[in-house]
């Protein structure tokens, strides 16, 4: 008896998660892109935890502009790659990097004062969970299954077949 095809499998779930995370990153990037007054200054200046001095150093004049630009660009890159499903491994790594920085800037450690955060957390917060989700996306690329990569790969497969 032939196996009935699963209606919704692991690949579908991961692809959905990938699109949602891409969506989240992209919107955060676009909102900043269209708001000339946006700056990461307050977020960095109020940083807590072991890397506090590093983040505070980023707020100095001349540096913070670059930090803002890079952050915005990185957010959009992650957003585009994950939403579209192409170069998603690169996107996932950049995403992991960004989320690690966000986590470390305001780590939810019980001995630190929580500023600039919403919600209540004890060591684990949404940034860290989203970071783990990006690891999964890195390990289980789905662009080939549901994403722009499928379109490009189709070409390659066709070429391969023709060559045979």
């Amino acid at each position, binding site marked *: 008896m032939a196996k009935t095809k699963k209606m919704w499998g692991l690949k579908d779930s991961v692809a959905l998660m990938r699109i949602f995370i891409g969506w989240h990153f992209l919107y955060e990037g676009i909102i900043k892109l269209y708001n000339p007054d946006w700056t990461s200054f307050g977020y960095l200046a109020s940083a807590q935890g072991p890397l506090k001095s590093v983040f505070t150093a980023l707020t100095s004049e001349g540096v913070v502009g670059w930090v803002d630009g890079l952050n915005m660009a990185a957010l959009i890159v992650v957003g585009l790659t994950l939403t579209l499903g192409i170069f998603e491994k690169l996107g996932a790594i950049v995403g992991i990097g960004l989320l690690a920085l966000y986590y470390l800037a305001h780590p939810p450690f019980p001995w630190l004062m929580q500023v600039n955060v919403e919600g209540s957390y004890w060591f684990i917060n949404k940034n860290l969970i989203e970071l783990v989700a990006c690891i999964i996306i890195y390990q289980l690329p789905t662009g080939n299954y549901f994403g722009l990569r499928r379109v490009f790969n189709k*070409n390659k497969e066709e070429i391969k077949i023709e060559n045979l």
Partner: protein
Amino acid sequence: MKWTRRDMIKGLAGLPIVGGIWWAGASKGLMTNKERSEILEQLNIKPSLSSALPSIGGKPIRVGIVGFGIRGEQLCKSLGFATKEWLQNMEKAVEKNPKHTALKDFQAQDKLNINLVAVCDAFDVRAENVIASFSTKENTVKRYKTHQEMIRSGNVDAIIIATPDHWHAPMAIDALENGVHVYVEKPMTHTIEETYRLREAAEKSSALLMVGHQHRQTLSFKTAQDIVKKGTLGHVSMIQTNTNRNDDNGAWNYSIHEEANEQTIDWDLFLGSAPKVPFNKNHFFRWRKWWAYGSGLSGDLLTHDYDRLNCVMNMGIPDSITASGGIYTHIDGRNVPDVLQVNMEFPNFSTGSSQEKGKEKGMTFIYSATLGNGFSRPTLLMGHDATMELGNKLTIWPDSRSTKYETMLKSNKMRPSNPIFQYDPGANIPDAISSATSQYFADKGLMWTYINGSRVDSTFLHLREWLSGIKNGGELSCGIKEGFEEAISAHMTGLSYKLGRRIDWDSSNQVIKPIEGINFDEVLLSNA
């Protein structure tokens, strides 16, 4: 190439999502910008920049400090002279907490073209501290026993008076009559009679008088002037401003120096015109608690709030004042109140109206103070069209029944709960650790202001304006007119509190309306 429909859907599904997100993000951003610029255009507020002062060139101005207590030390620091002890303490503070910026701020401060050449203090330890800390190879600070000797020495061009209140006017008048420039702490005077004498002396003298209301340098207040002038708030019918402190320092229970005794303190010099009482360390170090030397909440803290608002509104002396209060939180032998409520009436004052002519006129200024609670109540200017919170930051909320903003409120472009304007020149500066009392002053814009994104001590700016005026001429932002208004308002408040009745101002004759059988100055000075 065999692309199925399935391939197309699964391959390209991300594109419309990206398009959608982009559109949503962009339109939200552009919408917000448009709405904001529409509001800002209507408000037309231009955050003003500090006016550039000509440099203080030529020979250094020779300055003498009279009174090197808590405020005197702060003033010297603002002039660029910090005691060795302070510098050491600040170095330790930085070691403990790298965020502590007091030392860095002090070192970053521009140098003023002055020599600190003279000191006068009734307490030997303080006078010697000045000499030891500020004398250099080229310049030894000289101690004078009295202010008269300092003023007549020919060695000083200008003096700074940071003594108890009862010494302010006698010293300022003497200096002005001898052509020596004066920076006098607030309140400008201790009695009504000397307020007039000081005004006369200042008007006659070629020397300059500056009253130490340093917040006039605060950038946000200059912006606030613009806001009020443009009628952004509509007719302001009420101002409410407050003092809330709940610590010993804030209640004037300063520490008593261990070396203080009858040998190290010139007690008669301290007393001056005050009633003769035996040597009392408590009186010497905590003089703000007695009417004989200080003026309590009305002269000490109300004056800050009154002048802040007079700087923004230019409302002058009120037509009448009623005040009440008592000694409720610090029953420790003091005779000035620690809880005080003051109502100042300005029946003819208006900041302009957005309604039909003649409907609005008049304003009440309410000052409410307690030394037994530290909850920070904001200073509010309440107009028919909007409410403004005044401090180092400015925030304006539209009023739900505003006439001026009616259309914008109706179309939901403005909401009463959302500020329509916020001015926070220090937003980009992480704050240092401040003590309760200094935070109290900082929030009111009395400690520092922000220029081009960096924090600047407003006392430094105030002193610099005075020194620049001495060298280059130019208007002073807190001269005799402002000082006179501040002093009279404070004295009317003190009288009202002590007499338990309304005190009226006769503006055409420029006098407090007399009350039969009552000598106002006697009442002000009495310890009853």
